[in-house]
């Protein structure tokens, strides 16, 4: 039989396969480029960028828990100008779509970052981070409030021609409402989920392990939560979904795709095994061949109830 078709298109962004690397887990590209051929990724979603450089939270910023990580990095980044000058020239050497995760403290901040990236060569799309649990102003303060979500997404929509992909927070009572709100305000696709708000306490000192007190849980521990939320959102909106949350092997990615995602992003597993994304691509290919499926698209939203 012929080789299965892995190529997909999300919001006009053509990808060689449906496996990206998730924001915050792959730096800005050079960090893993010695080991991972970036050209073989579906897309690269870079770490969150804000209008001005931002120092992030105090350390400790990261703690491992069974099946996951709780992090409170706090979106440390070089700012939009720093990103464009320092990292984008490197990324332009590769044939891989670059999706820039953006965030701000106000809706205007988000829109201004989007405007500064509009028309810059080498950027395929924007992921709007309205769901980071680790900053006091911005992040999930927007993504857990429908009015604020609408304000941010519409403000970004007005200032860029790039595809925009809001990243949804998992800690809301009705994620479908947030998905619809984003689409109504101009979102071309959605990504979900961000890390789940979490906390770890040292029982000897009785202090929180993270300097930020709380953080966000990621990794295999949140995968079934993410599958459920992708399933919910897929029934609510028609735009393509990028599923994020605990993908470590092809089985996890396929589960997401069957639940309703068009593509997935590998996050925490990059730290365990940097080649995970490429291994997931191979695993998907193998699964399609084994089941006589012609394309990955034929699996999307095929969950049988």
């Amino acid at each position, binding site marked *: 039989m012929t080789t299965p078709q892995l190529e997909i298109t999300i919001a006009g962004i053509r990808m060689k396969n449906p496996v990206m690397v998730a924001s915050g887990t792959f730096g800005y590209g050079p960090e893993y480029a010695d080991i991972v051929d970036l050209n073989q990724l579906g897309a690269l979603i870079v770490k969150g960028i804000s209008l001005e450089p931002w120092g992030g939270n105090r*350390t400790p*910023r990261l703690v491992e828990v069974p*099946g996951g*990580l709780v992090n409170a990095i706090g979106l440390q980044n070089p700012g939009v100008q720093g990103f464009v000058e320092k990292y984008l020239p490197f990324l332009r050497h590769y044939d891989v779509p670059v999706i820039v995760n953006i965030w701000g403290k106000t809706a205007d901040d988000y829109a201004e970052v989007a405007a500064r990236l509009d028309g810059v060569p080498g950027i395929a799309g924007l992921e709007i981070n309205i769901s980071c649990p680790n900053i006091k102003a911005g992040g999930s303060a927007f993504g857990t409030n429908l009015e604020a979500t609408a304000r941010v997404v519409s403000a970004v929509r007005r200032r860029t021609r790039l595809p925009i992909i809001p990243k949804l927070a998992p800690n809301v009572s009705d994620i479908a409402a947030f998905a619809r709100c984003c689409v109504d305000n101009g979102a071309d696709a959605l990504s979900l989920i961000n890390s789940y708000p979490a906390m770890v306490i040292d029982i000897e000192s009785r202090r929180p392990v993270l300097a930020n007190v709380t953080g966000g849980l990621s990794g295999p521990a949140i995968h079934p939560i993410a599958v459920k939320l992708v399933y919910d959102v897929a029934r609510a909106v028609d735009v393509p979904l990028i599923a994020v949350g605990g993908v470590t092997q092809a089985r996890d990615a396929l589960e997401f795709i069957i639940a309703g995602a068009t593509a997935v992003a590998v996050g925490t597993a990059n730290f365990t095994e940097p*080649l995970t994304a490429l291994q997931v691509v191979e695993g998907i290919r193998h699964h399609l061949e084994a089941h006589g499926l012609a394309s990955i698209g034929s699996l999307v939203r095929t969950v049988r109830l």
Partner: protein
Amino acid sequence: MHVENGLVVAHDPMGAAYRVLTLRLPTIAAKARPGQFVHLRLAMLSDAVLRRPFSIYGVDGDMLSILYKTVGRGTAAMKDIQPGATLSAMGPLGNGFPLPAAETTTVPVLVAGGYGVAPLYFLATRLPRTGLLFAGGATSADILCVDRFQALGWEVRLATDDGSLGTHGLVTAPLDSWLADARREPEFFACGPNGMLRAVGERAIAGGWKGWLSLDRHMGCGVGACLACVQTIRKDGAETLARVCKEGPIFEAREVVWE
């Protein structure tokens, strides 16, 4: 940087609390420099999502060794690793110690706290000349590798918190005695607890000497992507955040901004 599967060729106790793990890692071993580290995947911890970083203790041909102490869940699980097993290693990672030029007149002064001696032993095997090792630990059981340094021709001075070996007290005590009438300019290379590193750094700055400090911070990815292990450093008059795993783990004493 490479990811390589390493065959375990030896795993031996060193005293009561320490172990030396030797892996066949030809690609990483060929490129490894003193002060760099390897990031090991401990597959026996099936629910772990992070690798564990270890300073490189020695390189011999294709073989690379680490010297470690059981300090947490990862190192506790490592005790059952048997020769013949395979471990995935990423490396070599980090910047490593700068090696002084052959014509330099400074005397290398290594300062170690406990198993902080590991990267310093690798350094001693690569330095163009011998010098002095000052090693401190809680008890005599925490003083490691003395005979190995002596076999390389190094002078060794010791201190223990309980007085069971060497000077009773901190490693800075024998170091200060030596500095009081040192006839040659020292260049410090240190690895150990923060208090010790800071004390060595203060002496380097006060004397106008170079001091290279190997910082230990809780790491995630090991390659500069996750930004977990940041340290405030002073460079060209401005304070910035450096990634200990990438721009470090070795920093010059004047760069480090202690909290």
